[in-house]
């Protein structure tokens, strides 16, 4: 067992974990922060994305001990009290979710993407950068719209059906 100290959503959390404990297990099982999901457990789906020192990472592919001394932000940490984070609000507005399973990871990935690209984001970049996030419900269309809207970027041009 190793003692870890991780600042989670701004609060310093201490715990004693087995070295093999994944960061996502620490968040969900030790801290009860079940907003971060496990979809695949094989690094493919992105349901587990959180921010480590401000950057999107897959918390199923990282050990809690690796994160000791770092800051972690989860989906629970982005709203301001009752007010949704702009990316959360955009997902609601644009119907960017159906079952909601992928949503925490999608939103954390989107926030990171917007941090890096700002309003210069375009549809192609959003789709390319969603490479590591799988959604089985929405067909991605409204997720892309929500992210572009939250970024203050231009929406894709509607293409008339042939």
């Amino acid at each position: 067992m190793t003692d870890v100290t991780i600042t989670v959503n701004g609060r310093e959390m201490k715990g004693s974990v087995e070295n093999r404990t994944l960061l996502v297990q620490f968040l969900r099982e030790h801290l009860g922060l079940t907003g971060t999901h496990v979809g695949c457990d094989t690094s493919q789906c992105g349901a587990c994305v959180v921010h480590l020192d401000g950057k999107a990472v897959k918390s199923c592919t990282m050990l809690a001990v690796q994160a000791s001394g770092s800051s972690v932000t989860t989906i629970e940490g982005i709203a301001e009290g009752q007010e949704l984070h702009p990316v959360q609000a955009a997902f609601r507005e644009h119907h960017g979710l159906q079952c909601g399973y992928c949503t925490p990871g999608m939103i954390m990935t989107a926030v990171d993407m917007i941090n890096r690209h700002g309003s210069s984001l375009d549809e192609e970049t959003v789709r390319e950068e969603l490479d590591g996030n799988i959604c089985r419900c929405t067909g991605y269309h409204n997720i892309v719209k929500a992210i572009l809207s939250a970024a203050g970027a231009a929406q894709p041009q509607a293409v008339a059906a042939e």
Partner: protein
Amino acid sequence: MYETKYHRPVSLPQAAKFAADHGDEGKYLAGGMTLIPTMKQRLAAPEALIDLRHVPGLKGIKVEGKSIVIGGGMTHSDVAMSDEIKSVCPGFADLAGLIGDPAVRHMGTVGGSVANFDPAADYPAALLALGATIRTNQREIAADDFFVGLFETALEDGEIVTKIAFEAPDACAYEKFRNPASRYAMCGVFVARRGGDVKVGVTGAGSEGAFHWSEAEQALSSNFAPEAVDGLTMPQDNMMSDIHGSSAYRANLVKVVTKRAVKKALGH
């Protein structure tokens, strides 16, 4: 995953000491993007993990004129976003930006990728074509001698990839034909031209990992144009064959992707 010990060295000698203490039962842990999935599948069960993320000697990107030196601990995203690398060798930064997805690029490192030598890893194609040098905590190894075979490199037990170094060529480009599901290369080709000398590194297709396509190097050295590759045939013998593509398919892909890479390099 089996339980393991965890060490967090803060210097290269300390990291090497931990490795020596565990004989060949310990493993360095860099981004963990390969090692942790492998441990979850119980394909690897190291007695101890030696975390390299806090070793300053593995950090930094230095670009002086055309000379580029990248710390083994730099992430794919550090490389992809480096304005300095982009300005002297855009093809290399492009390659790093095509690895995995943003979350993988935030953790995965140059050193980890090179040490692992996955047959579909992207960097090895570039390092072969660029004639790069791999520096370790013990010596310098030319890329041609470093990459030995499937998941096999010249690294000795406990040896740490500290830097990769190369000279930016006059023109270069990486073209990647991705497996639509895993997004790993089905075939990735890096072409680099220095004056009239052209090198071609191919990954994803060969059953022994990345390799030089010598015939294409000759043809492109006399005529750096996509058509120069037209008359060549890639032998199928050493091509990978799996559910994603037969060896004949991959052999053809090598040619197609090489032409695209040349076209891209001419555009830069």
